[in-house]
């Protein structure tokens, strides 16, 4: 497989809308699939799904960055659900009072919109480690990416499955299979492959950079890239730049290292980042010291996530 050793580009240096494509929540990260697979069979349903998800992301991510980060992780997750319920239940009341046909067509999937996993994943993997502006930017990128993918999937399933667009009859075919969840999986899988091909082509021509997550490097390529990142972090100035650009720590506490032995890094990046950040007292001169392994691993994970468009590695 071709290696992609492009320059270090953090999420901050790339246009926020780029993340919507490069780290698309549905087609690249494969999160928030349940409502899309089950509900997004028409453009109308996809639009409702996209609107609710966007509202949830735009509320939850900045709120997590500002307030909820102070809570333990197990207490933050129900907060996202409570916010989701607070948004979805009045919407159901409103739609019911209007006697909207979408209530019947979406049925039990309407309240399930309060539980979109993309919200919890983005909040727990990104917003909890960032300042509010970075979290808001990530929310906007993911909301745009989710909406674009959901609308495209809804459009294709309505056109090919129902032979209509926005409820207007356009063709005589009627492929029922596309309304069903398996049709949703197949459409999403094919679109994900199409996006991957597009990103590879654009990347090879140097039009976009930092699409490594979307292109899913082979394990050996990942190791090469990790080693490269590790070497770059040995330089104090680069380390400082990456810390600032990643926005992981607030300006007054941007120096994370500690003299105590740090816990071993876990398999998943976020807990490692969290434990490393917790274990790290402020030390003004620490930027010149070697970083403990756990902090280094955490920063590497963060840098990789940024390089890969803010996408989570194991989703």
């Amino acid at each position, binding site marked *: *497989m071709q290696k992609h050793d492009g320059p270090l580009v953090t999420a901050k240096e790339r246009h926020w809308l780029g993340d919507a494509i490069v780290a698309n929540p549905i*087609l*690249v990260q*494969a*999160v*928030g*699939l*349940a*409502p899309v*697979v*089950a509900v997004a069979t028409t453009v109308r349903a996809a639009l409702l799904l996209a609107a609710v998800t966007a509202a949830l992301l735009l509320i939850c991510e900045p709120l997590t960055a500002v307030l909820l980060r102070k809570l*333990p*992780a*197990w*207490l933050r*997750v*129900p907060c*996202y*659900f*409570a916010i989701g*319920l607070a948004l*979805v*239940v009045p919407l*159901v*009341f409103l739609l*019911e009072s209007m006697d909207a046909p979408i*209530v019947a067509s979406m049925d*039990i999937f*309407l*309240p*399930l919109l*309060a*539980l979109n*996993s993309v919200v*919890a994943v983005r909040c727990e993997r990104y917003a909890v480690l960032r300042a509010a502006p970075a979290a808001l930017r990530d929310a906007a990128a993911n909301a745009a990416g989710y909406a674009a993918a959901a609308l495209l999937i809804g459009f294709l399933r309505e056109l090919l499955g129902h032979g209509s667009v926005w409820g207007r009859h356009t063709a005589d075919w*009627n*492929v*029922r*299979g596309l309304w*069903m*969840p*398996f*049709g*949703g*999986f*197949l459409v*999403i*899988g*094919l679109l*994900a*492959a*199409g996006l*991957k*091909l597009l990103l*590879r082509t654009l990347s090879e021509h140097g039009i976009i950079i930092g699409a490594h997550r979307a292109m*899913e490097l082979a394990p050996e390529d990942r190791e090469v890239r990790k080693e490269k990142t590790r070497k770059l972090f040995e330089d104090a100035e680069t380390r400082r730049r990456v810390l600032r650009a990643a926005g992981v720590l607030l300006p007054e506490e941007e120096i994370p290292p500690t003299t105590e032995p740090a816990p071993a890094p876990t398999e998943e990046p976020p*807990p490692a980042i969290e434990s490393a950040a917790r274990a790290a007292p402020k030390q003004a001169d620490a930027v010149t010291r070697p970083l403990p392994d756990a902090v280094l691993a955490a920063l590497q994970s963060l840098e990789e996530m940024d390089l890969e468009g803010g996408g989570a590695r*194991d*989703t």
Partner: protein
Amino acid sequence: MIRETLLSMFNASLYAVFLYNFIFSGGLGTTEVIRAAKKNGGMLAFAGLISFFSMLTSAVSRLLTIWIPSFETLSFAWRCLLFGGILLVLYLLTGVALAFLKIRAQVFLLKYLGMAVLNTLVMAIPFLNFQRSHDLPRALAFGLGAGIAFAGASLLINSGMHKLQQNKSIPVMFTGVPATLIYTGLLALAFTGFTGASLFGAEGGI
């Protein structure tokens, strides 16, 4: 009487696992299934958590519908609020209990509690029980069936992902997420066969 109840529970579980598999035929909890399938360890423990909470939510929701006589006449929005509230309260009670009880599995349970409880699969069970007017035993069996369906789906996807990773003839653009999703789609197609649905034309269906 006991035999009939057990048989009825067995039927409800079978229905949830095969006839209307919540994951493949219903599309519920798909993100969680794929994420669980990516991890080789703890998959069945996670499925156990899902089963437990599906059963607990089913039981509490069913008892609530018995205790509140006017529940049947409540609007859909009120039911959303009540079922959502039940799930939230159960989650918080479990979380608080786990935070204070220093048991061996505390770290694992607290780490995966959110993903195991607050997902579309567990949330949908009370609604499905209500729609189908299930009594308490059947509601419990439905919850158990959800957990079994989750475990089965995780194992199937996990095994498929390993095979797909070893297969070097897959075009690069299909490797990873696209291959996993298409494979899951084909599994879902197989389970759709159990529902007796028609794939083409407006007639037939579930």
